[in-house]
């Protein structure tokens, strides 16, 4: 608690100007009082004895002279068992419990505890009195759904501490002390299962950061094969509206090979969160046999919820991701959309009368974006295990123009770029990841030489298609025409994926290697045709069989049979004189 007190001196949208006495810190949490309700705020700037605060709620009804309380603490989240399966708002309020209390609508100023205080967890100690521990080391474990949830020594411990007492195995509440620690100076500290951590400060209680090397299989072919994501890596998906950013994120949240998925729905449509929220409890996670919601945490601050809390929401999500990494998990954080967060920064910055940068975004946009993505990564924990946070963020560029500041700031810091193209989505070629513009610095799940060959073919195909628009089919050589058809074929049967087909919607790495190997053979084969119409007819047929093949499960008997049919069909065209 802080001894500082203040009164409101001005209100401008979500920004309050507050006159205060006492000590006030940057980014400190404060509460403004209106009609008996306390509205949470954060200190953005201090000037003399006046501070500018952004309010995380609607400011209607605030009056000059109303009191403001300062907490002395930074904006923090609660970490402990019980996070998985939860649906929080940007300030970590559990939305379902809020609904029980307030009904259909979100009442401002209602803040609930993020972790239920009455729930009991079965704690098993992993240390004994006399053991030495440092920040982040495991004190004990509790089962949380499908995982063992590690109870860790507080992340803000400095130096080596000795375990003085540890609770016996048994049922405890999150706030019960489960260990007492003592340091060389004789200070003692009680550790509970629940700890609080400020969202804007990374948790760094690990041994070292490593380079992301292994691919994170998303089961989206165009990503895993052509533009892969690494475990512990970062990627971004910019795209104009309607190009399928959110659908792609939803598919990834279902099929990606991660232990835990954190979804940060930041300033986007509520309807999209609802789909996740209502469907995940019903969908089975093939990796564990449990439902998908058991491995998911949803942070949702949708577009009509208070703007200032948008920024908090991405940091809340990142802090929870970092927490699970700390206990040895591979976490995938999906942020949709980082542009809305950037816009929230712009709104606040504008109201603070800061000198604007490009397109009125604040000048610190780039450094804020960079430090956010840098919280991703693979780490070696103190006990030698590896763990990771992978971050995928969508970007919603104004006018679909990738030259705008948020896209450019993001591209500088990510390891893979999945650019969505309006032309592809208009032609209903989903996922609409542009195969020519996108890039990735990570390793593919299939053979690199095959990928290089296929990319070259796609480039040639696109060039020939351009040329054909000028000179027509009749002015195109047979050789070029076949290259063009092959590129179209690759696009139709491999780059495009039917998200609504039970088999085609997710392609395992094994299947990608198998299918892409077969396709590479076809793309390299010398197909001979005498007439263009014959070539087109042939490729139409081949596309049809291959698409059927995509819809057959790999262990079904028809899989081999269809593959054989494709092989024979191709042999026909290569054998032709």
């Amino acid at each position: 608690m802080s001894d500082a007190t203040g009164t409101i001196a001005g209100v401008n949208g979500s920004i309050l100007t507050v006159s205060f006495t006492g000590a006030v810190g940057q980014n400190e949490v404060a509460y403004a009082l209106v009609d008996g309700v306390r509205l949470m705020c954060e200190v953005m700037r201090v000037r003399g004895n006046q501070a500018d605060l952004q309010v995380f709620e609607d400011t209607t009804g605030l009056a000059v002279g109303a009191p403001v309380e300062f907490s002395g603490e930074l904006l923090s989240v609660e970490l402990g068992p019980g996070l998985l399966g939860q649906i929080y708002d940007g300030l970590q309020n559990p939305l379902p419990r809020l609904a029980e209390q307030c009904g259909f609508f979100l009442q401002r100023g209602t803040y609930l505890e993020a972790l239920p205080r009455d729930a009991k967890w079965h704690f098993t100690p992993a240390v004994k009195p006399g053991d030495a521990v440092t920040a982040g080391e495991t004190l004990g474990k509790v089962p949380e759904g499908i995982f063992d949830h590690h109870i860790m020594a507080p992340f803000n411990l400095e130096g080596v501490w000795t375990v003085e007492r540890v609770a016996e195995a048994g049922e405890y509440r999150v706030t019960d002390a489960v260990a007492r620690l003592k340091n060389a100076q004789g200070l003692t500290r009680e550790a509970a299962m629940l700890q609080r951590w400020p969202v804007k400060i990374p948790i760094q209680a690990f041994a070292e950061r490593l380079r992301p090397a292994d691919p994170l299989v998303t089961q989206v072919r165009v990503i895993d094969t052509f533009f892969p994501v690494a475990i512990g890596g970062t990627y971004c998906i910019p795209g104009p509206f309607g190009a399928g950013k959110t659908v792609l994120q939803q598919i990834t949240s279902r099929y990606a090979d991660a232990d835990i998925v954190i979804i940060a729905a930041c300033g986007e449509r509520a309807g999209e969160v609802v789909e996740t929220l209502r469907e995940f409890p019903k969908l089975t996670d093939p990796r564990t046999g449990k439902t998908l919601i058991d491995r998911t945490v949803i942070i949702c601050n949708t577009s009509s919820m208070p703007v200032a809390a948008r920024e908090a929401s991405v940091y809340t999500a990142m802090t929870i991701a970092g927490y699970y990494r700390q206990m040895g998990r591979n976490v995938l954080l999906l942020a949709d959309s980082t542009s809305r967060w950037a816009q929230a920064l712009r709104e606040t910055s504008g109201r603070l009368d800061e000198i604007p940068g490009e397109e009125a975004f604040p000048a610190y946009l780039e450094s804020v974006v960079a430090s956010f993505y840098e919280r991703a990564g693979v780490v070696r924990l103190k006990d030698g295990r590896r763990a990771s946070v992978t971050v995928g963020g969508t970007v919603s560029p104004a006018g679909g123009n990738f030259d705008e500041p948020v896209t450019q700031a993001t591209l500088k810091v990510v390891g893979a770029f999945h650019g969505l193209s309006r032309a592809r989505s208009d032609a209903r070629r989903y996922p609409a990841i542009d195969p020519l513009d996108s890039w990735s610095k990570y390793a593919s799940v299939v053979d690199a030489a095959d990928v290089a060959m296929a990319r070259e073919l796609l480039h040639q195909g696109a060039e020939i298609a351009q040329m054909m628009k000028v000179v027509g089919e009749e002015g195109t050589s047979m050789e070029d025409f076949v290259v063009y058809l092959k590129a179209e074929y690759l696009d139709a049967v491999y780059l495009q994926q039917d998200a609504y087909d039970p088999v085609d919607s997710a392609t395992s790495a094994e299947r990608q290697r198998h299918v892409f190997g077969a396709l590479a053979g076809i793309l390299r084969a010398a197909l001979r045709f005498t007439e263009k119409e014959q070539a087109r007819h042939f490729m139409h047929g081949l596309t049809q069989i291959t698409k059927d093949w995509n819809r057959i499960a790999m262990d079904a008997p028809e899989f081999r049979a269809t593959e054989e049919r494709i092989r024979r069909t191709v042999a026909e065209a290569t054998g032709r004189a």
Partner: protein
Amino acid sequence: MHKVYHRIEDIAGNVIIVRAAGVKYRELAEVASRRGVSLAQVIRLEGDHVSLQVFAGARGVATDARVRFLGHTMRVPFSDALLGRVFTGSAQPRDRGPALSENMIEIGGPPVNPSKRIIPRNMIRTGIPMIDVFNTLVESQKLPIFAPAGQPYNQLLARIALQAEVDVIVLGGMGLKHDDYLFFRDTLEEQGAMIRSVLFVHTAADPVVECLLVPDVSLAVAEQFALAGKRVLVLLSDMTNFADAMKEIAITMEQIPSNRGYPGDLYSQLAARYEKAVDFDTAGSITVLAVTTMPGDDDTHPVPDNTGYITEGQFYLRDGVIDPFRSLSRLKQQVNGDTRADHRTIMNTLIQLYAGYRESLEKQAMGFRMSEWDAKLLKYGRRFDRELMDLSVNIPLEKALDLGWEILADCFEPMETGVHTRLIERFWPNSAKRSMESDKSDASDPSDNASPPTPET
């Protein structure tokens, strides 16, 4: 509480600044000047300087105008007596009916808790194939109609409103031409729909601040009807005027503009309105259809651009038809799996082939030789234009799907369509199936009665 202040410090645009104490943010006030009395709303507090946005405009307001604060925010009356009535943006009667003052509700209420929303599940049938087949409208959807000026967007809006099965229609008009307002009113009256409609109309001649109130007032009323279990359709026309009104106020308030003069919070402001679209778990629903005119037919203009990121799809109205490529209903997947087994396939196949038709048209325009395939596409595209895309077509979904198969069979061999073999066996019209079985290499057209168009060279 209701102390009167009569020292106006500043007047700029429609914003006045008065020195007063104890005033609350967003509170309403009455401003009495020589021109009459107008409502005004607090939009900024700085010490004892209170900035007020005057609904009727500040024109004629003098420095000795009297300001009385009312102690509450903007409210509208809500009851069934609203139905059949027409009001202004500040909820004053626009028809000759009595003013209503009972059961006042606040506008711009809090957002719905996302965990109380449900997945939309009911299709709204419109009888327009370009909507029903390709971009199905869904109850609780928020969908704009993007159109360059001069397109018949208000006619389309009115037609959807009349054909959709809903309980209440709320029309919010912003910057409407007076004829357009009369068009809506007369159309609703002629079709007997006025008794389930309420209109909040701001015309281009009215004070610009009232334009800002229209969406909030309309949606607040819609929300109350929905909470009472009604299925409500909200029509807003035109949201670009709303955004321009916001721009005007923001510039007056010396806010830093972000893009083409629009305020940095344009996205949040639009989203706060559109997100009122909802399907309540145990009550009714709100569906929002909003016209957004595109200055210069440019969808990267800040208003349509921000709108596109907020809404669940968009209808593009161009050259008098709904553009099949740019238009999108994001919620269609929620409902078009349960209509008929072939709905999704027909939707995708017809569009992909139509894209091919457009390419062939381009080639034709440039004078290239038309291949056999081009000829097929041209024939197909012309039938598509005439029988499915034309806005005058009014047939139920099932008829439209059947027609889709018929056109496919008339123009292509099954294999050329890329349709899954299983569906071909089930839905492909019979005459064509026979020809497929008898002779696969027979390239002649399955239905010989329609002569294929002659390829032009």
